[in-house]
C-alpha cells in the first residue's frame, strides 16, 4: 500500500510542478513599485501593455502607498519606483538607494467635497480651505468632515505639507476630533469612503476622474502651485542593491520619457473621461519645478555594479 501512495504522490507532484511551471520565477521581469493613486487610474496597466508589446518584455507592477513603495526600493525588492513625493524622492537618491530622478508626468491634487459644500470653501486657496474645514469641522462634525489617506502616501505627504503651510502642527490635527477621519487606505478606497461620509478629501485628479462615475463628490479647489502633483520614476541603484534589473528599469524610464511614451501619457483617458488624466512632463519642466537634467530626458546612469 505504501508503494501505491508513493506512486500517486509522485504523480500529483509532477502535476503540481507542471502547473506552476507556467509561472516560473521569472527574474528577467521588470518589477515596478508604484502608488495606488497612479495605479488606480489604470495608466500603468495601459503603459505596461504597450511597453511589453514593443519590447517583448514582462513587467510586474506592485502598488501600495508611497511608503511601502520606498520600502520595496530600499530592500531591493523592485527595480523601479514611480512615486510623487519630492522630499522623499530626493532623500532616496541621496541615500544611494536610487540612481536618478526622472520627471515623467504631472497633474494636480484637488480638494473634493459634497456638492452643497457645507464648509463653503469654494474659491479659496488650498491652505485657506483646509483651515476653514478644520474650524467648521470642529464646530459641527456631523456636517463638515475631512478624510485623510493616513497611509504614508505621496498624497498624504502633500496633505501634511498643506497643513504645515497653513500654520498647523500636523500631530495636533490628527485626533483633534471626529471631523478628521484617518482612513488608512489607498486613493480609490479613500474617495469611496469620503463619498460615503459626504466629507472633504485631498485627491489627485487622475484617480478622482477615474472614479467620478461612482462618486457624487465634486472638485472644489483645483490648480495652483501648492496642489501640483509631479510623478517621478527612479531606478534602484544596483551598487547598493545588487540583483536589481537596472537595464530593464532604465529602458522603461527611457520609454516613458520618449516622444511616444509622453504622447501616450498625454492622451490617456481623453476618450473615456473627456479630458486627459495626466500632463506630460516634456515641455512643462519649468512649470513643475523639474531641472532640465531630470525632466523627461533619458537616463544616463550606468548600471555597472562596481
Amino acid at each position, binding site marked *: 500500500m505504501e508503494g501505491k*501512495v508513493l506512486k500517486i504522490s509522485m504523480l500529483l507532484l509532477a502535476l503540481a510542478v507542471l502547473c506552476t511551471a507556467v*509561472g516560473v520565477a521569472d*527574474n528577467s521581469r521588470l518589477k515596478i513599485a508604484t502608488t495606488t493613486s497612479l495605479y488606480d487610474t489604470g495608466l500603468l496597466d495601459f503603459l505596461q501593455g504597450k511597453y511589453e508589446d514593443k519590447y517583448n518584455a514582462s513587467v510586474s*507592477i506592485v*502598488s501600495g502607498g508611497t511608503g511601502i513603495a520606498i520600502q520595496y526600493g530600499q530592500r531591493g525588492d523592485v527595480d523601479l519606483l514611480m512615486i510623487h513625493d519630492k522630499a522623499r524622492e530626493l532623500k532616496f537618491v541621496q541615500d544611494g538607494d536610487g540612481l536618478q530622478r526622472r520627471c515623467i508626468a504631472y497633474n494636480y491634487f484637488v480638494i473634493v467635497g459634497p456638492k452643497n459644500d457645507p464648509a463653503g470653501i469654494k474659491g479659496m486657496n488650498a491652505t485657506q480651505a483646509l483651515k476653514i474645514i478644520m474650524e467648521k469641522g470642529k464646530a459641527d462634525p456631523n456636517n463638515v468632515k475631512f478624510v485623510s489617506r493616513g497611509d504614508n502616501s505621496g498624497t498624504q505627504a502633500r496633505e501634511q505639507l498643506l497643513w504645515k503651510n497653513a500654520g498647523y502642527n500636523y500631530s495636533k490635527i490628527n485626533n483633534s476630533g471626529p471631523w478628521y477621519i484617518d482612513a488608512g487606505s489607498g486613493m480609490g478606497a479613500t474617495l469611496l469612503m469620503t463619498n460615503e461620509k459626504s466629507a472633504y478629501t485631498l485627491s489627485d485628479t487622475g484617480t478622482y476622474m477615474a*472614479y467620478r462615475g461612482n462618486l457624487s463628490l465634486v472638485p472644489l479647489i483645483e490648480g495652483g502651485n501648492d496642489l501640483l502633483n509631479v510623478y517621478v520614476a527612479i531606478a534602484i541603484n544596483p551598487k547598493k542593491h545588487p*540583483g536589481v534589473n537596472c537595464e530593464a528599469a532604465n529602458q522603461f524610464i527611457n520609454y516613458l520619457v520618449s516622444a511616444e511614451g509622453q504622447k501616450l501619457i498625454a492622451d490617456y483617458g481623453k476618450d473615456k473621461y473627456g479630458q486627459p488624466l495626466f500632463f506630460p512632463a516634456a515641455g512643462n519642466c519649468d512649470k513643475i519645478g523639474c531641472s532640465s537634467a531630470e525632466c523627461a530626458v533619458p537616463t544616463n546612469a550606468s548600471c555597472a555594479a562596481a
Partner: protein
Amino acid sequence: MDEISAGFIRAIQLIVTLDPQVVEITARSLSISLTSVFIASLIDIPIGGIIQFHNFRGKRALINLIQTFYSLPTVTVGLLVFLLLSRSGPLGSLGLLFSPEGMIIGQTILITPIMIGLTISALGGVSVQIKETAMSLGATDLQVIFTILKEAKAAVIAAILLGFGRALSEVGVAMMIGGNIRGYTRVLTTAISLETSMGDLELSMALGIILISISLAVNLLLNRIQGR
C-alpha cells in the same frame, strides 16, 4: 443589496463566456493553493504522525502551540514571509518575492499548523487497540503508522481539504508575497480586494461567488469521501 444579485448575474456571465482574465485568475488561485496544500501534506502529515506517536517532554505544550497557530492572521504570516524572502532578507538571493513560487511558500507555511494539528487529532482519534492489533500481527513501526493513517483516512483527508480551503481563501499572504501583479500573481482573493477598493462591487461579488463555488465543490467532495 442589488450588488449581490447583480453579482450572481455577472458571475454566471463571466463563467459561461469563460472570460479570459477570470479564467486566468481562477486557474492561478487553484494552482498555487493546490501546490501549497500538496507540499504541506508531504511535510506535515508525517510530522503529525511523529509527534502523535512519540512521547517527549513538552509534547502537550507543543500541541497547544500548534493549535494556537491555527488562526494566525494571514497578514502577519504574510509579513513574516515577506521579511524572509525580501532581497534584503535571509533568503533574498532566491528572488522569490512577488512571484507565484513565493506565494506557494507563504501559503504552505500558513497552513502548516492546521495540517500538523489536525493530523495529530485524526491519528489520536484512532483506537489504541488498532495500534496494538497491528503490532501483535507483526507490523513494523512504519507499517503501524501507515495502518493508523489508513484508519484515520477520512479525518486526514478532511485536514487536507481544510488546509486547501484556507490557502485558497486567504488574502494576507497572497497580497504581501505576490503583490497582486496583473497577469502574474493576481489571484481570486487579491482581485476581489482590489476590485472592492476600486469600487467595482459587482465584479468583486462575482469573483467572490466563483470562489465560494469552488469551496462548495471542495466540501461536497469532502462529504463524499467521508460518507464512504
